[in-house]
């Protein structure tokens, strides 16, 4: 009995690292008449980093959007369990409050709303959902300052209308700033590396790494091995025509860099 009571303290991190965060089973989704996801299976545990690669148009962003709750897509079959909850049953904002975060491949312009005001609303809405007290202006100031350091982002950018007139790289950096503020349990980074210069890539990747813990997990969608030199994946998956057709370790990414996708695709046909 005594041993059992103590167990959570001693084994917290080991237990968490085994803890299932996301379990996607046979997920099918379509837009209009077009089926895009054709049976995705994916399991992500706490502490893991998964990379999803694959040719243009294979469905990577669609998978990310479906997980985040975009309503344009209709899930026709399959299930998604996120930390014991039926993810597909939750509204996008509820998914966020449960700890899911999507860094958009194409971050959207929000006219007239500054990043700081936007994030204040987001944080306090999530806190309300979780039954926590709202944060005040002083607390926000302190917290934002701390998080800005993660991605080396400037206050002047955060005061401007969100993403309006931001450069490609500024948009991506801002996505990771938002991630740092929200501290998600599962972050999906959709091509966060594209459009970043070499220094920015390193800064953003280091930011992501700093946010990593045994209690959370990351899915990175990328076309390039480059990013995976910084954010080292535990698993690499290849998505092709709406299915994961191959999974492996970080070596798979190296092999793809060298050989492209043809050898995988031809093995399928």
């Amino acid at each position, binding site marked *: 009995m005594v041993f059992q009571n103590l167990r959570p303290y001693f084994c917290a991190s080991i237990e968490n690292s085994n803890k299932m965060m996301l379990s996607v089973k046979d997920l099918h989704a379509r837009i209009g008449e077009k089926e895009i996801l054709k049976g995705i299976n994916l399991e992500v545990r706490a502490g893991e980093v998964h990379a999803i690669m694959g040719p243009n148009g294979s469905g990577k962003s669609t998978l990310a959007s479906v997980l985040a709750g975009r309503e344009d897509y209709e899930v026709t079959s399959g299930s998604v369990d996120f930390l014991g909850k039926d993810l597909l049953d939750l509204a996008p904002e509820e998914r*966020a409050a449960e700890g899911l975060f999507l860094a958009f491949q194409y971050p*959207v*312009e929000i006219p*007239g709303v500054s990043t700081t005001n936007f994030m204040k609303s987001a944080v306090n809405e999530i806190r309300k959902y979780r039954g926590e007290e709202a944060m005040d202006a002083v607390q926000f100031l302190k917290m934002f300052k701390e998080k800005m350091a993660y991605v080396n982002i400037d206050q002047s950018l955060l005061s401007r209308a969100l993403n309006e007139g931001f450069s490609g790289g500024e948009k991506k950096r801002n996505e990771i700033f938002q991630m740092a503020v*929200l501290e998600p349990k599962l972050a999906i980074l959709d091509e966060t590396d594209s459009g970043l210069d070499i220094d920015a890539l390193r800064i953003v990747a280091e930011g992501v790494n700093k946010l990593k813990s045994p209690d959370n997990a990351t899915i990175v969608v990328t076309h390039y091995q480059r990013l995976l030199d910084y954010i080292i994946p535990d698993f690499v998956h290849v998505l092709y025509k709406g299915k994961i057709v191959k999974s492996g370790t970080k070596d798979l990414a190296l092999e793809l860099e060298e050989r492209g996708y043809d050898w995988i695709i031809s093995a399928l046909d």
Partner: protein
Amino acid sequence: MLHSDTKNTLVNLSELSSASSESLTNFMEMGFPTNKWEEWKYASLKSFNEISWRWTPETFTHAVAVPAFQQSLTVQNLNGQTSILGDLPEGLTCVPLNQFLNQNAGFKALYEKRNPLLDQNSLYHLNDAFNQNPFVFCVHKGTPLDISIVHQFILEAQAEPAVIQGKIILYLEEGASLTWIEQQASKGSNSTLFSNYALEIWLSEQAHLTLYKDQDLGNGVSLVDHTFIYQAANSQVDMFTFSINGTFVRNNLHFYIEGPNVVSNLNGLYVPGEGQLMDNHSVVDHRMPHSESNELYKGVLLGNATGVFNGKIFVRKDAQKTNAFQSCKNVLASDRATMNTKPQLEIWADDVKCSHGTTTGQLSEEALFYMRSRGISADAARTLLLLAFVQQVIDKVEIISLRDYLSAKIIQKIEQSWEA
């Protein structure tokens, strides 16, 4: 002429000895506007012809709360009865028109040569019939009033449908400046009330007027506003029309630019909700050269609301070097809302710069999803986007307490519309 049956409902009007017969005849010949009149196509008051109105409503005297805008004097009008709460500051007088015309030759000259455009405006005549001797507030030469005047025009429901006709005249002498905050509000249950209101303003040379209209009436209340502003050389008007609530709100706003180097800034923000109609008809009449007018109107249409914008800009032959700019932007916050926009530019001078643009759109689904993916609820996301949209107009309000007061009311209205 009116239909004979319609006329019957108005017949008690002609028996009113207090009303001016000439203006009344002008009104009686036309009656209330119907959608057959081009200028009232979307904002018909046809049904008003059938109502048996009480033309001289009972006044009430009990106190009405005054919002706390810093450094202001309140002029209260309760169902047509005017009282001034406090002492007029130095440099400001309030005198009935007939008396003022005898006192002030400068004003008399301007008043007598007034030449407003009154096509299809029977309601101006109706108002005039009941307001032969309105109060004239005069800001004396060179006086920059350091307080603002809050004019509360408050209607109280009657047992039967009632028309309340108010009128105020403002006269700014040379170099005078004035901030005037007009609030149209109502008390009492949802009975039919119609406020037919006129505000006529003359600015002498170098005068500066900041004019705010806060139109926030109960459901069941209709308002037709006639605001005619005559500007002499080098004068400036910064004008704001906030139409926040009311079943039917129609603004007839006229600017007559009668001297060079005049600046006329027209700003408007309207948020009609379920079952409401808000209509802004403006005329900017450039009669003299070297002047500029800027119109910025924004609308958020909630529920099944209807909005109307008609912006006429006339640039007369003598008005060379005129700059006239007009913009009207709208968001339909629901797919049941409709907006009708019509810019109308008529230019007889050749050396002018005019531009106009109207847009009507919906909230971006992409933006809403992005916001929701960060944990912001759909309603909060919509509210945030709409507030960002109207901010441009609200930010121009220089009195911070007024700005906060207006934006709180607008937020509340938008948020309530999601609950419905």
